[in-house]
């Protein structure tokens, strides 16, 4: 079981709710993925206030936990305000904290991220920060009160998978007890399987499912990949070698001439 802020979850696959052709397709993808957490962007979907009720009630009806995010926020103040609005609309202390620092790569502004995480944690939020694989930033986020980290695989929507596998492995090794969820950049199920094989606790997927030709089938493929990756991690993979090692002992086999 995955533990996120004292909540036990069976599924290790989180889905984002943007860019689906309809809320009904999103719902079908959520069911196929057997996901238990769906992220929702308040800024883009709702344009503020309570005007997005129609969509939000559809998301609530999915019967999953909603993880509201602060996507599109560029400053500490914007992110904090959006988090407050999210708590009011969805009645949850969970907030996926995104503070964008660079518009081309949607790379997080880690300085603002740490500051906002500190403010929100003090206010009782349970913060899921979208961060890079930087170890020092991770330390700062934990000191600021975060109990979960969401490092990127590669830039949002790029579909490039785990761009810096060395850095991500180092992060995993450095924080063995902290739930680490790969957020952003996953393009295909093999990327997700790799993340779970490396010991990451979960992955968050949006574009790769929403923009697939058949989002429902792709959601199912990701579920299977995440299950396989997790099982492989638990099973203990063999180490890679430079030379062949026969799986059948040679001594005693029949002579071949």
């Amino acid at each position: 079981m995955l533990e996120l802020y004292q909540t036990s979850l069976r599924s290790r696959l989180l889905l984002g709710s943007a860019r689906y052709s309809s809320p009904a397709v999103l719902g079908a993808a959520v069911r196929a993925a057997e996901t238990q957490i769906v992220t929702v962007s308040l800024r883009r979907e709702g344009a503020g206030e309570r005007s997005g009720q129609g969509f939000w009630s559809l998301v609530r009806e999915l019967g999953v936990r909603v993880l509201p995010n602060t996507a599109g926020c560029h400053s500490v103040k914007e992110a904090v305000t959006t988090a407050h609005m999210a708590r009011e609309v969805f009645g949850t202390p969970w907030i996926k904290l995104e503070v964008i620092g660079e518009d081309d790569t949607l790379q997080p502004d880690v300085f603002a991220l740490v500051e906002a995480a500190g403010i929100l944690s003090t206010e009782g939020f349970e913060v899921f920060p979208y961060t890079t694989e930087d170890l020092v930033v991770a330390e700062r986020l934990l000191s600021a009160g975060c109990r979960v980290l969401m490092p990127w695989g590669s830039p949002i929507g790029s579909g490039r998978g785990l761009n810096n596998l060395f850095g991500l492995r180092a992060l995993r090794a450095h924080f063995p007890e902290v739930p680490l969820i790969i957020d952003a950049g996953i393009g295909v199920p093999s990327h997700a399987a790799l993340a779970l094989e490396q010991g990451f606790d979960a992955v968050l997927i949006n574009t790769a499912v929403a923009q697939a030709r058949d989002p429902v089938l792709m959601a199912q493929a990701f579920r299977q990949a995440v299950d396989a990756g997790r099982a492989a991690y638990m099973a203990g993979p063999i180490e890679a070698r430079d030379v062949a090692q026969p799986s059948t002992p040679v001594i005693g086999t029949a002579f071949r001439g």
Partner: protein
Amino acid sequence: MTRVAVIGAGIAGLACALELAERGAAVEIFERASQLGEGACSWVAGGMLAPWCERENSEPLIAQLGLESIPWWRERFPRTVVNGTLVVAHARDTAELVQFAGRTRNFASIDAAAIAALEPDLAGRFGRALYFEGEGHLDPRAALAALAGRLAELSVPIHFCAAVSRAQLTWARAVVDCTGLAAAKSLPGLRGVKGEMVLLRLRDFTLRRPVRVLHPRLPVYVVPRGEGLFMVGATLLESDDGERISARSMLELLSAAYALHPAFGEAHILEIGTGVRAAFADNLPRLTVRGDTVYVNGLYRHGFLIAPAMARRAARAVLEGSHFPEVMDEDTRQQRLA
């Protein structure tokens, strides 16, 4: 003659009234606003008749209904233009073009020379494009006016400032409700999806057909309206608040137009429009029959594209009791998502 009341004079209401009148019914239209288009999302629509492009992000039903509707428009609105859609992406977003091509059909992949031949003012701007030759576009406001004109010829009155309920329409044998989001109380699950557009005037620049600019986050289209007018749209926001455009949306729309061609930097902003389209959870249209009332709703962002096909079905449902599973049966609809 069968007497039918149509409530709502947006594109759905006018198309339904016309289909009914052409089939011999005695029709009257009731519209709560004081003039044609006021408060209707039809007034700020793009007016693209793009069944294949829309396939990129919608169910096959939309393409099917849209294909039915193009000939309908050409017969009833001669200014309907069928000369294709051009889909482009900036060099850094070419992955979007590949993705779009993989999800649509009936296009030609064309090079810079072919783009320049189709749209001389875009020469040198893009290396590759998708050209959907069979698609069309129209000016929604002129089209609404033309439909109203044909209805007048058929002696169908449009009563403005007439917010009516079924109880007041005792004379009518049937009622067709085309009131969009205003019908939300009767149609559970109906929600509003906000759209925003700007109307620009730019002299000495010509586009002959709608151009869609793909972008991972902000896909935008520019539709020529003739005489130097260009409509730039449209955002899709999960919101039923259609009062104002946000600064962010305005920036996105104008940036996209400017990126299509820097000449748009000199354009005049004539109008900023917002509307709220009514949609069901699957973003697909529905005919809902309740007693002697037929609701035509959930046309989402496809009003002009699919209203004729929906109107044809609504008229036959009213006059002949016909059944159309693809837009009436929950079971059929849900199977598509199973």
